[in-house]
């Protein structure tokens, strides 16, 4: 018999009590006339969402800054973003057009597909070598051949506009935060919140302010993609060698010179990593934002999903992946290029120094000219496009006809054996008890501050009438996180202890991470149709990455001396793993768990597309109805769940680190 400490006895007892309450509580409480403890009474709900909606309407219709109204202000911003966006879109996708609708006449065509291809190939070669050029070229060729060109160019136009705004804004905010610690203190919690509130929640107010269309999508994209740039900027500036800062002062730099001529260039290598992050997040968000009128590939996937057009959705989905991979590889190559300094090219004339630009420019002009006579040069001919839609449709049909029973069996097994009992458990816990438990957990791990925070946040969820949906959210995320951990942590450990497995798993994980969250839904919906199980599989796929990554990192970073000590003490491989590596990697693994939860929560709104009934659905409905209050309240509820989980896990990871002496108790 393992001895159980009194503390764990208490927790075990509390858990048993919770289970009993969840199972029989309803009957008991109703018998005792305390039904209010089971289901949060409607009469007690604070109509927060209505107040927010009303405030929003006031803002849009009446608010004024004196000289101009709020609406004029947002329209102004809208106009400023729209100009470059329209230009990019015209150049890449639509050409310059006069007139509207059917009478529109194309004055100047967009860049021909050949010219765009030449451009990206040249970029690939400039950034690294011919191999990268070939990869990027092949990716864009795929887009043309499979008939995704125009949508892809619309998406690319959004990225091309959103990324510079996101980078510049992030850089400026980051620099300001670096210079003024008080500003950083204000900014930090806002950034934390922005990363935990699901993007959809702030899509709604943005939609309200900027109207349905690409500008809203761009604004949302920038807001979503900027926080990592801010963080990386501040971090990179802090990390600049103090001697270099001293040198800047000793040269007599003014503050401005210090920032732009010493600090920012010295931090360039880290800053470019931030740019890569902005690009990837923008791409992900541009796809999601197609729901509010950005068009492009995301819109194609969305409409295909809605029509259950598997083949079409899959093709557009693959196109997203390919575009994402191409852009990611390109920007990573640029990031590495920034750390190695190549001398500027030598040559007497501009033409000699910029051979690539000259060639691309020449191809651009020639393809314009030839395109007037030969349309195939201008636009990839429809007749030559391939489609694999039929193939996927048939494949899915084949799988569904021949393996229907097997798929159903798997689905039923999980639903009945795992999902439904957990769901019943969470929905059965009386809300009063649940809040008490969350508070108690907070108190154990983080003292009264964490307890109070948990109490307030859980209270907010109950008081705004979101309790039941929140519990479905917790159940869906919880089960997904458990499964993601069960799959991900062993994979991570394997990757760390076995080099070859590590390499294969590394590639797999990199690929999963490049994919926009949207894409995960497509194959799962094809096989399992809509419902909670589908949602869970999609969430697991998306959220498994950090579980693997952190576990691998944790196990790898156990000090080699300790491993040697274990070997010398005569540990078998298994004992090395169970006695030394895993316990020491525990704090890292917990952090990975934390990230897994965050990703799972951020995936919720996307899974709402397949008919879940959780907070994500609430946000999604608010989005379609443009109901600001409803969307924000549900968004906050999700954010609060995320924050509660985050704080509890961070606190426990910290206490584990303190226990192993990896961190001091008061540090």
């Amino acid at each position, binding site marked *: 018999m393992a001895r159980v400490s009194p503390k764990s006895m208490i927790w075990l007892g509390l858990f048993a009590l919770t289970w009993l309450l969840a199972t029989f509580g309803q009957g008991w409480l109703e018998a005792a006339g305390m039904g209010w403890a089971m289901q949060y009474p409607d009469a007690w709900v604070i109509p927060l969402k209505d107040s927010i909606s009303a405030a929003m309407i006031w803002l849009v219709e009446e608010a004024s800054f004196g000289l101009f109204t709020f609406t004029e202000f947002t329209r102004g911003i809208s106009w400023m973003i729209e100009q470059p966006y329209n230009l990019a879109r015209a150049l890449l996708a639509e050409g310059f057009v006069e007139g509207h609708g059917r009478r529109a006449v194309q004055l100047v065509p967009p860049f021909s597909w050949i010219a765009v291809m030449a451009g990206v190939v040249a970029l690939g070669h400039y950034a690294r070598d011919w191999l990268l050029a070939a990869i990027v070229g092949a990716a864009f060729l795929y887009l043309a051949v499979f008939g995704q060109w125009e949508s892809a160019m619309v998406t690319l136009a959004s990225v091309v506009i959103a990324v510079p705004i996101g980078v510049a804004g992030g850089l400026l905010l980051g620099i300001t935060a670096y210079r003024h610690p008080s500003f950083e203190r204000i900014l930090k919690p806002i950034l934390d919140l922005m990363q935990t509130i699901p993007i959809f929640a702030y899509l709604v107010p943005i939609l309200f302010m900027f109207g349905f269309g690409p500008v809203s999508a761009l604004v949302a994209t920038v807001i979503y993609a900027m926080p990592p740039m801010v963080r990386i900027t501040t971090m990179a500036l802090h990390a600049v060698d103090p001697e*270099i800062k*001293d040198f800047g002062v000793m*040269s007599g730099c*003014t503050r401005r010179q210090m920032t732009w001529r010493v600090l920012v260039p*010295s931090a360039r290598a880290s800053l470019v990593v931030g740019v890569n992050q902005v690009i990837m997040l923008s791409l992900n968000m541009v796809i999601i934002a197609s729901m509010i009128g950005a068009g492009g590939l995301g819109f194609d996937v969305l409409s295909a999903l809605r029509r259950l057009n598997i083949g079409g959705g899959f093709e557009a989905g693959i196109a997203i992946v390919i575009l994402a991979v191409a852009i990611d590889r390109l920007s990573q190559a640029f990031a590495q290029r920034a750390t190695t300094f190549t001398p500027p090219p030598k040559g007497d004339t501009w033409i000699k120094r910029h051979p690539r630009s000259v060639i691309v420019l020449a191809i651009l002009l020639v393809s314009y000219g030839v395109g007037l006579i030969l349309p195939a040069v201008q636009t990839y001919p429809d007749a030559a496009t391939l489609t694999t839609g039929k193939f996927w449709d048939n494949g899915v049909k084949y799988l569904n006809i021949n393996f229907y029973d097997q798929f159903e069996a798997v689905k039923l097994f999980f639903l009945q054996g795992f999902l439904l009992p957990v769901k019943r458990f969470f929905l059965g816990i009386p809300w009063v008890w649940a809040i008490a438990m969350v508070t108690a957990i907070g108190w154990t791990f983080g003292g009264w501050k964490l307890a109070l925070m948990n109490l307030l946040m859980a209270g907010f969820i109950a008081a705004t009438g979101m309790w039941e949906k929140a519990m479905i959210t917790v159940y869906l995320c919880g089960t997904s996180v458990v499964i993601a951990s069960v799959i991900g942590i062993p994979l991570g450990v394997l990757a760390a202890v076995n080099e070859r497995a590590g390499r294969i798993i590394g590639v797999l994980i990199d690929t999963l991470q490049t994919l926009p969250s949207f894409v995960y839904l497509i194959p799962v919906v094809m096989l399992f149709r809509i419902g909670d199980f589908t949602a869970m599989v999609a969430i697991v796929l998306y959220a498994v990455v950090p579980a693997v990554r952190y576990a691998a990192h944790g196990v790898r970073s156990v000090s080699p001396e300790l491993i040697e000590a274990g070997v010398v003490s005569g540990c078998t491989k298994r004992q090395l793993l169970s006695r030394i590596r895993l316990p020491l990697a525990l704090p890292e693994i917990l952090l990975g768990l934390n990230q897994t939860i965050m990703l799972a929560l951020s995936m919720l709104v996307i899974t709402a597309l397949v008919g879940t009934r959780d907070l994500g659905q609430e946000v999604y409905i608010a989005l379609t109805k443009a109901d600001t209050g409803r969307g924000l309240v549900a968004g906050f509820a999700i954010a609060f769940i995320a924050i509660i989980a985050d704080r509890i896990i961070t606190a426990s990871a910290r206490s584990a680190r303190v226990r192993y002496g990896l961190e001091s108790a008061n540090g």
Partner: protein
Amino acid sequence: MTHPAKLVCRNLWKLYGAIPSQMLDSQQFSPTDDELKKLGVIGAVKHADLEIEAGEIFVIMGLSGSGKSTLVRLLSGLIEPTMGEISIDGQDMLKMSERELIELRRHKMGMVFQHFALLPHLTVLQNVAFPLSIQGQRKSAAEARALEVIELVGLKGREGYFPRELSGGQQQRVGIARSLAVEPEIWFLDEPFSALDPLIRREMQDEFLRLQGMLKKTIVFITHDFDEAIRLADRIAIMKDGHIIQIATPEELVLNPADDYVQEFTRHVPRDKVLSVGAVMEAGADGGGEGIPASTKIYEVASQVVAAGKPLKVIDENGQAVGAIDAQRVIDVLVGNGA
């Protein structure tokens, strides 16, 4: 010591931690180490008094944690002192405005760093021209001047290299060239050769002496290497636990160490290279020969004196005989029991 003082500090303190304000306000601010310890305050530099003269090489020597880096950062204005005065050419540096400080650094000060602190994104030429272009000089003028100093430090032909393409010694040459580009009057060198391997270090020390021979700057040189200090210094300040223990010429240090700590450093010094004939001779005695100048170091004349077999005449800078030196005195120095 007739030179004017270029850089002066008086009762200079740098403390870390919460210091009671009434203590700072008191006229005679001079807490003892024990008092500081009781307050939980860490004293990086305590009660530093220095007068650095124009054109001398002033070396601040101390082991790590002795406060030498803090002291040079105070003198160069990179950090502000808790207490005390610093003046440069008679001007109170602590009363200068931000603008005046920037002007001071742009034109009067240059600094060389331990880890070179080169900007990784600029070429050698651009790095050296950087302080000039910060002042707003035209690119062509700045680069012409940069080329001059690059040639001075022996890096001609490598203007287009990036710092990472150079060896450590070459990188520090760039650092030196950069600090000299603005023709500073005061030159701070913060352990400039510590990150280099011993052979290169020696070569760079020779290079440094060669440059100073031409330029005659006022130099504040930081090092933890006593041999380096002896080799380069006109005067040395030895620091320990934030205090300056002794300020003296290398010869005086060897002859009259202030305490056991200083003596411990001087024990392994090659005395014949430090001590001069004047310090070893028998004052007032008569000797033969042409006359050896009193400032000559022993090692330069050792074989001559021993070979002579009789006392040789020692003369001062005016050619007057001041004493005599014989083989026994030279041998005493060489075997370590002299003077």
